[in-house]
């Protein structure tokens, strides 16, 4: 596998391999595929079900299979597998898990602006906050294909102990950040300080970690020490590690392809800082999508710039705070 891989391909490849061993695993999609899905369909015709363009039924049918002991993987486009069927997720996964243990993984493809020119119906700026508000579901936002592939084993063995999880995947090919060997421990940990800085750090998630790394590299070439923390898991993350890492910085910028101040990464970090009494010593800034739906076309960077989270705009924010 090259170093430039789609998160969904590595995830589906690993799932395809695992379905041979884990005979109680089933894969369901809402008429959404990929070449690897075609292979799953070919090799496991009984355990690969396309329910059609019907996300509500995707969740309901998946729940029924999970109640009978199957490890269920549900696959669709990110905004549709979260918000189109939110009530089904709330009732049949989040509430029902209080009484009946299930193993369900929701896989949403198209985090943030990753469907670049498909507009606001297919872009997804709400999933981090709306899914994070539900109890009993982990939100996992990987930044590369090693992390996304590691989620297969994590899910099949329910290593998070939560039973259900929402995996938020970028739709585009991305460079690797991690190695196959370290991915499982990063996933288990839920966060990783990729660049150790001195005074200022960027806490980012998903694709934006790639942007944070590029911005930090520019500053650090000139002698600054901008840290980058990749935030991967929005529940059951290693709180003591986050605390000890954040304590080393006085300035924190959160960076996400999600609505700003609406309960996503920024609010998670702000709450964490507040709860652990770090706020007095810390300067906090957040960068995210402003509260509007845009119709900007062009490259992903063009769209980010229109929303105020382009790479230059991130660099300006860092410069201002340094």
């Amino acid at each position, binding site marked *: 596998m090259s170093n430039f891989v789609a998160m969904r391909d590595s995830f589906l490849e690993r799932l395809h391999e695992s379905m041979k061993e884990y005979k109680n695993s*089933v894969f369901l999609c809402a008429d959404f595929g990929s070449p690897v899905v075609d292979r799953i369909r070919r090799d496991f015709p*009984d*355990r690969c*079900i396309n*329910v*059609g363009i*019907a996300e*509500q*039924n995707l*969740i*309901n*049918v*998946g*729940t*029924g*299979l*999970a*109640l*009978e*002991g*199957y490890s269920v993987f549900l696959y669709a486009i990110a905004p549709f597998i979260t918000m189109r069927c939110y*009530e*089904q997720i709330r*009732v*049949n996964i989040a*509430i*029902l898990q209080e*009484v*009946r243990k299930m193993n369900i993984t929701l896989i949403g493809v198209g985090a943030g602006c990753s469907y670049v020119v498909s507009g606001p119906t297919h872009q997804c700026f709400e999933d981090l906050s709306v899914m994070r508000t539900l109890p009993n579901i982990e939100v996992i936002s990987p930044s590369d294909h090693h992390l996304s592939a590691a989620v297969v084993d994590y899910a099949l063995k329910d290593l998070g102990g939560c039973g259900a999880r929402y995996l938020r995947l970028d739709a585009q090919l991305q460079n690797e950040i991690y190695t196959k060997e370290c991915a499982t421990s990063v996933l288990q940990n839920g966060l990783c300080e990729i660049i150790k800085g001195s005074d200022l750090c960027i806490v980012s998630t998903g694709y934006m970690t790639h942007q944070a790394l590029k911005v930090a590299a520019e500053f650090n070439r000139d002698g600054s020490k901008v840290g980058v923390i990749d935030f991967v898991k929005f529940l059951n993350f290693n709180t003591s590690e986050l605390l000890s890492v954040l304590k080393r910085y006085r300035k924190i910028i959160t960076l996400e392809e999600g609505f700003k101040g609406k309960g996503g990464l920024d609010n998670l970090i702000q709450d964490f800082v507040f709860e652990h009494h770090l706020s007095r010593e810390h300067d906090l800034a957040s960068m995210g999508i402003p509260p509007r739906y845009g119709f900007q076309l062009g490259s992903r960077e063009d769209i980010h710039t229109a929303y105020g989270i382009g790479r230059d705009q991130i660099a300006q924010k860092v410069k201002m705070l340094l």
Partner: protein
Amino acid sequence: MNLELIKEKSKQIFIETIKVHWKSKETRVASSVSPIEIFCVLFYGGLMKYDPKNRFADNRDRLIVSKGHGSICLYPLLADVGYFDKSELAIVGDKESFLGGIPDPVIPGYETVNGSLGHGLGVASGIAKALKLKGKKEKIFVMMGDGELCEGAIWEGLMFAAHHKLTNMIAIIDNNKISMLDFTKKIIGEDSWCEKFQSFGWEVARVDGHNIEQLYSILKSWEVEGDRPRVLIADTIKGRMIPGIENQPLSHVMSISEESYRKILEENKYE
């Protein structure tokens, strides 16, 4: 099968449902009396395998009560068949109770969350698919209301179940013809459920939902699996036998009056 016994049980369950509602007024009484005979035929007619001592026994038939609000009659019924002690019926809605205004799966005998409508058929389809994949013979019963059929997710589930030939599924519609605010025909048009289900690939039968003989006869004949999933339209009367509530368009949100309550208990009549 002693159908007279089921009739006796229906009367007993009716009286006890009224008492449960009197104890906890937030329970929905009108929609909870319309399916009494349907549940009694399932539980007392030997048509559904269940084990109160082992509620998740592998070889049980699964009952998904999709119209959760309108199933308070199951409280006395589940107690009667041994899922929990009858003393629980006296404390419905209290701090110590697990029997609430809307049934939740903390109640032994309930499989899923039922307070939000339109989920049962899809979840049941997943269960049915799982049992088919495992080559198991157990059946899945789904109880829905006609008002609930406005929920679009049900129709997604109906298409799925027919396409996947989930012949282990039997849906039952408690067709009491009244939703929360009015008669369903005034909200969503004249009743054409039979044609709708047939066109979605389901085998359909229609009976008087208060007639034990008719209910038993069709469900007994359905013990042999068919070539399609099945739906039984059971015509019922919302709030049946409750003075002031029976067949009233707003009966869903009406509570029983003290006069009616006394009358029902004194006359002890149910036919």
